[in-house]
């Protein structure tokens, strides 16, 4: 009974998780929009900047608390990608030493990159750009 409670989030917990995901995820996107609107940076620059910010906050130990609070709200934005790269590198480096710096980057992100390539190929075959 107790086990089941831990595994299955209850209804209220779920609703709270949605609220935090919305607030934190929305805030990250909103702040990125402010940067876009107040500078001449391209979206590519902003995405790169956010990824780097996620990596740095991870190093400072500040990103995991955001993930604990906001769940997908911190994982889904591209800053979560920087977090995943860095976390993988740190974990592997702790486990394997210097080699881990080179094997760790794709530990958590390999799946995302692979998925993007596979789906990219499938839709490139199936679909044609419109406007």
């Amino acid at each position, binding site marked *: 009974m107790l086990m089941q409670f831990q595994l299955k989030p209850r209804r209220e917990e779920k609703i709270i998780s949605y609220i935090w995901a919305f607030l934190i995820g929305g805030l990250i996107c909103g702040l990125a929009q402010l940067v876009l609107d107040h500078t*001449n940076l391209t*979206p590519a620059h902003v995405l790169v900047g956010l990824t780097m910010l996620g990596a740095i906050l991870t190093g400072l130990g500040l990103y995991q608390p955001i993930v604990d609070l906001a769940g997908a709200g911190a994982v889904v934005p591209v800053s979560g990608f920087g977090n995943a790269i860095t976390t993988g590198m740190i974990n592997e480096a702790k486990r394997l030493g210097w080699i881990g710096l080179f094997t760790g980057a794709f530990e958590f992100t390999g799946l995302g990159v692979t998925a993007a390539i596979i789906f990219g190929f499938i839709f490139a075959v199936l679909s044609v*750009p*419109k*406007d």
Partner: protein
Amino acid sequence: MADKLRGIQSVQFINPPVIIGVGTIVGPKEAAGPIGDRFHQVIPDYLYGEDTPEQAETKILKEAIELALKNGNIAPSAVQFLLAGDLLNQIVSSGFAARQLGIAFLGIYGACSTIAEGLSIGSMIIDGGFADNIVVGASSHYQSAERQYRYPIELNIQHKATSQWTVTGAGAAVIASGGQGPRVTTATIGKVMDMGTKNPNEMGPAMAPAAADTFIRHLQDLGRSPEYYDLILTGDLGNVGKQLFLTLVKKNGITLNKYDDCGVIIFDKGQRSGAGGSGCACAATVTFGHAFKELEAGNLKKILLVATGALLSPLTYQQGESIPGIAHAVSIET
């Protein structure tokens, strides 16, 4: 002695070449715009039965040229030279269209000002006595331009209010030493002007100084006042560039009443086109479609086209260069 040179940068034709036939083709978005019924032909979609937007652009340009020949009632074999240009690297749309037309070809490039460059050079060749019939054309295509200058079509991009939408289409005209139709009377070749605009989303502001410079030069060289014309049309300055152009000419003591911009009139505000249309086809289709219908109907008698171009490439702005602009003016009178 250059007896047709006027002032510093202008020419006046002694036997003004006649525009005996025009042809314009636009895409569905342009056809849905405020002057959508003023073009000769509308293509149903961006690919127009081809595999790629580049092939579609070639086809549109070729067919616009054929339309102009048909409307001018002249066979391709009677045309000496084809002068055409577009926005793609190595002006491939024009070269590939010429491949199928079998007319001796001079490729020209003035970015979105290309059609005015073609009309100027073509008229000089005719008035110089080097040819009897010349066809000029220019094309652009939203998708091929996006692919070359910006991003993939389906990429999530929020367009800025200053950015402009490349017109899909082509415009062509047959100019001849004789016949019936409006005449190209003068031309002013513009200087490249760079006033330090660096943002590729701000083409209008990058080109407005060149438009103002060429326009003022034109009036001075020919001793004309703006009132001489029933309509003055800039090429593709868009809403923002148009305001800047008006401000710049006002600084020179000129107020314009009968002025508009092809990029502004081709799209509605609601058409998600930012500050307006752009591309070689913008000035070409609005002039040979919309303005020519007005000339034919007698609503207009004298128009001045000041077609504008931004002479940048993705490489130059990525290297931090500012955007040079150019404008050529051509007067057309009935």
